[in-house]
């Protein structure tokens, strides 16, 4: 029941409310801050999407049919998808253990290792490509070793995969490290105290808890790999993936003919990150909503009595 002297709805905050203990002027400041925050958010979102608007404004159905309908017009898409999948598989298999060890704080010189991961992020991809020539070119010791395996790290599908790994692996590993770090160590310790071996703790506790963050890290690495260009143009001119197809078509036939490939890149590269985001958001809500309750239900042995 409302008091009779208080209006049911009011544009002014009721002075008598228990929550209105803020100083005078704070309310106006709150509105101004909200406007600034919302304004900044809307502005940056629209600015970031601006190029997408330009893409659709300049894309014609005729150009799409002509570019993508030409013989072999879709082969850059398959090349990109295949190379990104191989690269991401390698990154997940090799990067996840590193991310987990870093998050556990079990590695000596962990900071040095982290800085090592930042270096490929910091370097312009073009420079990475140039340095890869010296590092993995056919006349280098690594190139000689690869040659024994009938592999070449320039202008081959393998070279493309290598370039994608360099451009996207740090994003996955650093993201996965953050995901593993966000898992409450208490839960892992409790499971270990209950007698679970570490692989079982990893499988039953760590991995499911970190999964939403891992999915996001994977989505970002995927987007990087699909769009990778700088290192690719140096060490893997052929076979063309989508970014190279955009570049070559731009030079050969102009912007109009190149845009359909940019459109195709969006169509094939976007669903996976979007799904990962949606799933991650749902899973996060579940994890934060239920995990604490579950830990309360676990009958924990008294640590002092175990000792």
């Amino acid at each position, binding site marked *: 029941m409302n008091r009779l002297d208080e209006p049911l709805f009011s544009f002014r905050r009721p002075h008598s409310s228990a929550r209105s203990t803020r100083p005078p002027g704070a309310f106006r400041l709150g509105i101004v801050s909200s406007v600034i925050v919302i304004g900044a958010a809307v502005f940056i979102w629209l600015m970031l999407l601006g190029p997408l608007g330009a893409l659709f404004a300049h894309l014609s159905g005729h150009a799409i049919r002509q570019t993508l309908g030409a013989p072999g017009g879709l082969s850059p898409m398959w090349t990109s998808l295949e190379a990104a999948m191989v690269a991401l598989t390698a990154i997940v298999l090799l990067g996840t253990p590193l991310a987990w060890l870093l998050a556990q704080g079990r590695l000596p010189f962990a900071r040095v290792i982290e800085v090592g991961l930042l270096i490929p992020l910091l370097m312009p991809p073009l420079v990475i*490509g*140039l340095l890869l*020539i*010296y590092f993995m*070119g*056919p*006349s*280098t010791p690594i*190139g000689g070793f690869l040659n024994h395996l009938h592999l*070449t790290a*320039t*202008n*081959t599908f393998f070279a493309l995969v290598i370039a994608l790994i360099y451009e996207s692996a740090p994003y996955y590993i650093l993201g996965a490290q953050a995901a593993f770090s966000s898992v409450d160590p208490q839960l892992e310790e409790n499971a270990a105290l209950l007698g679970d071996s570490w692989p079982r703790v990893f499988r039953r506790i760590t991995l499911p808890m970190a999964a939403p963050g891992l999915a996001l890290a994977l989505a970002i690495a995927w987007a990087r790999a699909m769009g990778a260009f700088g290192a690719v*143009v*140096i060490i893997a*001119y*052929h*076979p*063309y993936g989508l970014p190279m197809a955009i570049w*070559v078509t*731009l*030079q*050969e*036939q*102009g*912007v*109009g003919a190149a845009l359909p490939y940019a459109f195709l890149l969006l169509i094939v590269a976007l669903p996976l990150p979007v799904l990962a985001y949606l799933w991650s958001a749902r899973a996060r809500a579940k994890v934060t909503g239920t995990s604490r309750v579950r830990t309360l239900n676990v009958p924990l042995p008294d640590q002092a009595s175990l000792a």
Partner: protein
Amino acid sequence: MASASPALATSTPTTHAPQSGTANVAYAGSLLTVNEQTVGPGFEHATGYSYTGRGAESLAITQEIIAGTIQPGVFESVGAAPIKPLIPKYTTWYASFAASPIVVAYNPSGPYAATFKAIAKGNEPITKLFPLMAKSGFRLGRTDPNTDPQGRAFVLMLTLAEQKLGVPVSTVNSILGSDAVGASPQIYAETSLLAHLEAGQLDAASAYRSQAIQQHLPFVTLPASINLGSPSDASAYKKATLTLANGMKVEGGALVLTITTIGGPGAPTGSDLQADQAFVAFVLSPQGRALYQKNGYTLLPVKLTGSASSVPAVIKKELPH
């Protein structure tokens, strides 16, 4: 209007008071070193105007000008082919002033270095070059014929070698591999090709003579009859043709440095326009051309093609009368 830059006509190396205009020059990627390190600063020093340059594959610049994504005031390309699609909307004339022959740059520490050196010195005949490059396991680098004039020139040069030097077709086919214009592992981006050679990862690569000289790479000079660097052989060059991946047929022509001003929609005006015209005049002046010669280009008499009446007065002074 032309009073801003009469000093250009003379080749006295005097420094001029800073002028407000900026020459905005788009040029073939192979001109990057000479333009950024020598001609650009030389122009600023001689005229007082500012210079800003942008290097890219010539045909890509043509496409970007047509699409309106760049609006340079000057376009300097290798060969006239990239300028021709811009006539008459963006320009009605162009001037050629130097040649840029194709050479074969080689790896001085590679397994074939000794033979290359002997051919370069003339101790072995030039005809030995072709079977050498056709050897299995030989690592050749070249640029994309579909997007880059140098890539086309290298393939056309081999066709001319067939026609003029009697190199067997089978040898040429072995040199280029299975696919001359398609997805060949020999093809690198123009910007990185010589980096692969410098890193010792290739045995040889196509190059303009100027690039090889500027980057201190050893190279084999090719005869004028096949190197696309001699305008007097232009009619013979035409007999070499190449069909690109998109079905377009291109024919050989002399690789001459060609320059023009770019007008049309969004073209510079006022002092920037004067700076653009002053840049072209500087390039065509004896002082400017000497800078190109120093960087490995072969000087040619300045030659105008197109509408002489629309050439700005300040540039006209540098043209033959």
